[in-house]
């Protein structure tokens, strides 16, 4: 059949759907580019005209300012770059420890909220409704005061000569490196032990599927890990004469009874940790509750009908399905906790934002902003990446 060639002829440009779409795109694109360029060009001009310092040469200068609490060893004579790293490590430390504790507490409260016991359920409700509805800053000030109100160092609480709690913070026994070489070797061994444990677990699971019965994969896997770790420790201790790590016990020193050795969490860090964990846990509790409730009653009934026990139903039917609902918002709570740790400055803890703020007094502010933006975005993107990877994995089985 011969086709008359009419298509798309005679459409005026201003009514052509694709032309209109492309025009909208180009116009909006140009608009934003102009705006952004104008903003940054002005800043660039201002930097030039008003002699505002800019550049990254300062990074190799000495910072010359103390940092209140630091996980990594730090001296005032260290460089800006290293001080910045110390601050990032502090924020990461708060983030990681906080995330673990908040998840544990939040899960516990979320499950309590669903308890059939009226009192337990209501107490959980009161916790959730109070802690998530009050600004974190108010909570942090409250906890900070509680910590400050602890007795001074010399009159502080001492538990079995090992734990020291006073207004300078909490000191607990911790590992100390006795020789860097053997410590590194042992850490390497531990990593190898984890890999070996996982491999053994995987192999036993596959064997269980093939043969039908096998030793408990989880138990044997864990045992593999512990045996390799322990044997490694003993071998290193005997061959080099010192254990890879020793335990460092805090003890009061000198005339003022300052606590040295062990691991000390400063008062600000303690208040920050308590505040962040309790605040975030109230959100996590709601996420856990919603997740468990999202599993339909029919699923649980079907599992019961198949003869699965209560515990098995929870582990094999309820939790895997609830996890799909729980994980994405949970990860965004991890992210929130990390970002909320930037309130640390208000109670005198040296997190990334607080240290960066102090740095702007002796270094180019604009450069420092670029660095903190990059640091926070990197942390956010890492968490989002984990979330996206998880989403992709669980969405495979859908549809």
């Amino acid at each position, binding site marked *: 059949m011969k086709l008359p060639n009419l298509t798309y002829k005679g459409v005026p440009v201003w009514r052509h759907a694709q032309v209109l*779409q492309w025009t*909208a*795109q*180009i116009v*909006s*694109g140009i608009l*934003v580019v102009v705006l952004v360029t*104008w*903003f*940054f060009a*002005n*800043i660039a001009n*201002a*930097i030039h005209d*008003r002699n*505002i310092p800019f550049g990254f040469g300062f990074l190799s200068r000495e910072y010359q300012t103390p940092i209140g609490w630091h996980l990594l060893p730090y001296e005032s004579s260290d460089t800006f770059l290293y001080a910045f790293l110390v601050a990032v490590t502090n924020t990461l430390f708060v983030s990681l420890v906080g995330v673990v504790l908040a998840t544990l507490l939040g899960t516990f409260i979320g499950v309590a909220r669903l*308890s*059939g*016991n*009226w*009192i*337990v359920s209501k*107490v959980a409700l009161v916790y959730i*409704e*109070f802690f998530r*509805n*009050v*600004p*974190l*800053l*108010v*909570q942090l*000030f*409250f906890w900070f*005061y*509680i910590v*400050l*109100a602890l007795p001074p160092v010399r009159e502080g609480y001492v538990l079995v000569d090992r734990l020291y709690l006073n207004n300078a913070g909490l000191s607990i026994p911790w590992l100390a490196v006795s020789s860097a070489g053997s410590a590194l070797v042992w850490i390497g061994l531990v990593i190898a032990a984890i890999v070996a444990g996982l491999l053994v677990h995987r192999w036993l699971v596959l064997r269980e599927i093939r043969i039908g019965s096998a030793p408990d994969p989880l138990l044997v896997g864990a045992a593999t890990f512990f045996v390799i770790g322990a044997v490694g420790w003993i071998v290193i201790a005997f061959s080099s004469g010192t254990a890879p790590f020793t335990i460092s016990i805090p003890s009061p020193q000198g005339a003022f009874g300052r606590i040295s050795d062990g691991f000390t969490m400063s008062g600000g860090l303690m208040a920050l940790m308590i505040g962040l964990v309790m605040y975030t846990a109230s959100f996590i509790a709601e996420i856990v509750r919603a997740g468990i409730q999202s599993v339909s009653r029919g699923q649980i009934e079907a599992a019961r009908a198949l003869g699965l026990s209560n515990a098995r139903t929870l582990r094999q039917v309820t939790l895997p399905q609830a996890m799909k609902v729980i994980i994405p918002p949970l990860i965004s709570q991890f992210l929130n906790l990390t*970002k*909320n740790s*930037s*309130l640390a*400055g*208000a109670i005198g803890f040296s997190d990334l*934002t607080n240290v*960066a*703020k102090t740095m*702007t007094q002796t270094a180019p*502010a*604009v450069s420092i*902003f670029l660095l*903190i*933006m990059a640091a*926070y*975005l990197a942390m*956010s*993107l890492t968490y989002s990446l984990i979330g996206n990877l998880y989403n992709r994995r669980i969405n495979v089985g859908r549809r």
Partner: protein
Amino acid sequence: MAEVSPLGNPPLPPPRLERGIVGWVRANLFATRFSGALTVASTLVFGAAAIFGINWMLFNADWSVIATLGGQMVIGQYNTEAACPGQNCFWRPQASLLMVTGILGMAWGVAGGGLPKRIGIGVAVVLAAFALLPYSFERMGMDVRLLLAANIPALGIGWAVARYTPLGTSPRIALSAVVVFAVTLLLLRGIPGIPGLQPVSVLNWGGLTLNLLLAVGGIAFSFPIGIALALGRRSHLPVVKLLCVVFIEVFRGVPLITLLFMSQVLVPLAFPENFPQNSLFRAAIIITLFSSAYMAENIRGGLQALHPGQAEAARALGLPSWQTTLLISLPQAIRNVIPAIVGQFIALFKDTSLVYIIGMLDVVEISRAFIQGNPEYLVSTKELFLFLGLVFWVFTYGMSYVSRRVEENMGVGRR
């Protein structure tokens, strides 16, 4: 053989143990042995905690710090000699408050009862009660107390206006609320040259008033901006989409406090040196943009949950795409994510306490600054911040309560 009852069996009440208080206690407190143990343990622990807490609050706690701070918690340094030289400025925030109560009265007038009535009466009565507290007699002048008591007639006037004038429709009340917000800003700022309305620098605004103003303004602006960003992120136009994604992810990726701090140094550089601007205005914009990035993600979630057939049906009816979005997609999407949106409003209200970073004396910062300046009150810090927590809680819990009620009322017509 089955036992047949040709007339059917009569209904019987349930066994005694499943009825009444006994039944409730059995089902909710002692359903299993474990539950019973929990009940005993938790009663002991939380009972002891409650007794300790109440005892502390009533007998050991020293609440005088709240009385000392008093009006500063509400309006900060607004009515000090430094901020408002040579005159008394207290009446300006109070006049704004009267207008707000009037709006609540109008809402009651239109609704004719229910939640708006209870909120309106509750707010007016609590405000008026402040005028009658013994504490107020010691510290407030007669004029201040009269203006507080005037909230009750203001509520009545609002109600009457809604009932007997053409202003009594929901859209007009919304418009009135916008006007009241603008008038409040103008009133607090003052107008040069008019006696009694001397300008007060916004940097002297403070207290809970500042938190509420920032929250209301932030909510009002972040909602439409958030919608625009959400639509942009779902756009078919790659350029628009990319820009929205970058905006949203950057604002969500960096803590608000960092953004606020940066805005104070970076934004002024982008404008000419003599360009009029102030730190509060910049902070308000940053808070709004920050909140709209989160709002956009909530609304996008609602849009994603919509059945694609809805938009298709609208397009098949000949509705142009902007009307399809405005009349079909958005109303349904927003309705589906009301809890998340209100959660974001609450978060925004809580986040207004972060303006301390730019040196503004909001209700939290003025309290902290007071303690720092008056070390004799250091021991009262916990009372003060407990009280502050309660103040915030009343507002935030109130917001979530209202949203739940609104959602229930909108239950009709949902899938």
